[in-house]
């Protein structure tokens, strides 16, 4: 069996807040296979976003190892793309130019870039908006453009930090469907952070429940339902309830 794509071993991360040290992540250990879809759920303050940022290389762990594609993570890399809650499209560049930003200058010739950008625009359904400025896009469309940017240089892992929480619920549902389609098509591993349990159960193979204060893995629940999942089916509802119960247990626990 080949080595997993991503391995976290005993990862710890704390931040200085005021004059005190706050432990945000405690002893996180996890493996993710190629092409897997893993969702992280948990209340605010359980370090979900920090975990993603550690994998992306935007922060460094205090201790523990993070191995991505057989190499330790020391900083942002080609293997990893990231989508944020705010689309972070540069407002003065067109959609196509924004996507182009993710393609390193030297590695791609102009013709390749054009092709890749066109392909990914089509993948997310924005072919008609290649030359539009982000100001003209709706929230959902902007996030789709961000997804195209995250995928264009073919990372092995895509990180999504609450990508749909800033959108209205109709758009959110639609984009969840889009994301599933893209994942099925591209076969890229994805780590999704969300506070929407239904979203997690709909999209992921595995749902990791994080407990707060300090952030630690409290449960890992496998979702073995065939896609595309019926949100109203008994199994779906049961899984969702099980995860919610896990989360509620921590709501009542006193904050340390």
């Amino acid at each position, binding site marked *: 069996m080949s080595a997993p794509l991503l391995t976290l071993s005993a990862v710890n991360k704390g931040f200085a807040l005021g004059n005190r040290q706050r432990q945000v992540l405690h002893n996180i250990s996890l493996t993710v296979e190629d092409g897997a879809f893993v969702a992280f759920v948990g209340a605010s303050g359980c370090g979900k976003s920090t975990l993603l940022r550690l994998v*992306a290389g*935007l922060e460094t762990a205090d201790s523990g190892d993070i191995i991505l594609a057989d190499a330790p993570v020391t*900083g*942002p*890399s*080609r293997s990893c793309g*990231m989508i*944020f809650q*705010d689309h*972070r499209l*540069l*407002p*003065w*560049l067109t959609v196509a*130019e924004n996507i182009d*930003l*993710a393609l*390193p*200058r030297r590695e791609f010739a102009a013709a390749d870039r054009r092709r890749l950008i066109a392909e990914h625009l089509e993948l997310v359904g924005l072919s008609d908006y290649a030359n539009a*400025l982000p*100001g*003209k*896009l*709706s929230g959902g469309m902007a996030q789709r453009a961000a997804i195209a940017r995250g995928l264009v240089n073919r990372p092995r892992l895509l990180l999504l930090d609450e990508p749909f929480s800033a959108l209205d619920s109709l758009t959110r549902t639609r984009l969840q469907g889009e994301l599933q389609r893209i994942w099925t098509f591209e076969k890229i591993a994805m780590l999704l952070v969300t506070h929407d349990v239904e979203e997690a159960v709909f999209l992921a193979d595995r749902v990791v429940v994080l407990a707060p204060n300090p952030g630690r893995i409290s449960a890992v629940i496998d979702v073995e339902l065939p896609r595309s999942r019926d949100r109203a089916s008994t199994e779906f509802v049961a899984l969702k309830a099980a995860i919610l119960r896990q989360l509620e247990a921590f709501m009542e626990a006193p904050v340390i």
Partner: protein
Amino acid sequence: MSGAALAFPLRRWAARLGIIGLGLALPALIAVIWQSAAVLGLVDPTVWASPALVAVAALQQLQDPQFWSDFGASLLRDAEGTAIGIAVGLPAGLGLGLSRFTRDLFAPLLDAAKAIPIFTWVPLLSVWVGSGEAGKVTFIALAAMLPVLFSGVEGVFSLNPAHLELARLLRLGRFRRLARLVLPGAAPAILRGVRLSLLFGWLATIGAEYLFEAGGGIGTNIMAARELYRLDLVVVDMIAIGLIGILFDGFSTLLDNYFLRWTAEKS
């Protein structure tokens, strides 16, 4: 067409004329008083040149090649000094904004330089660089440099940290980050600085012409006219100076409209 249908646009036009009329009322009043006082001999006409005399002098100047050559000399000086000032100040400002180390190093000196009224430098510059063209252009460059420098720093400060993080994530190279992120993001502040630099440069040009004796220019002319108590010429030159200021302002607005196209309304 019925009378009522005609009345509305007519009323609107009348209202507009009324507003313009009110605006002109005060200057018109002053002009009338001034002109009558001059005509009636109530004031010394050699000092209080009447509006009529000013108009005549304006027409004369517009036809006088010497006037245009002096005007041109001033503008040329201004262009040289301002170009140097911006060419030095803008990269310096961006560099200071991007590097905390250099900023900390230079901060006290720059804050001190900002506190000194710019014209205080004139006597010193006239000794170090001379009171000829070089001295004037140096002064103009100094005046134009400071606003754009500080606006460069402000521009970098105003960059969205989320964008800077994106640049880190996408591992953007230095040049690409500058061209695609820093400059467009800092553009609003930089353009504000450029607007001030253009204005200050022009003011420094006029002031330099007042204070450094030699050399031709509109500033020299206006002072010469003053000495001869030719108020009519003084007013003509004043208007010319003011018009250039307005022109620079309009040009700055054009720059704004071009570089900030993307800030147009969202759908």
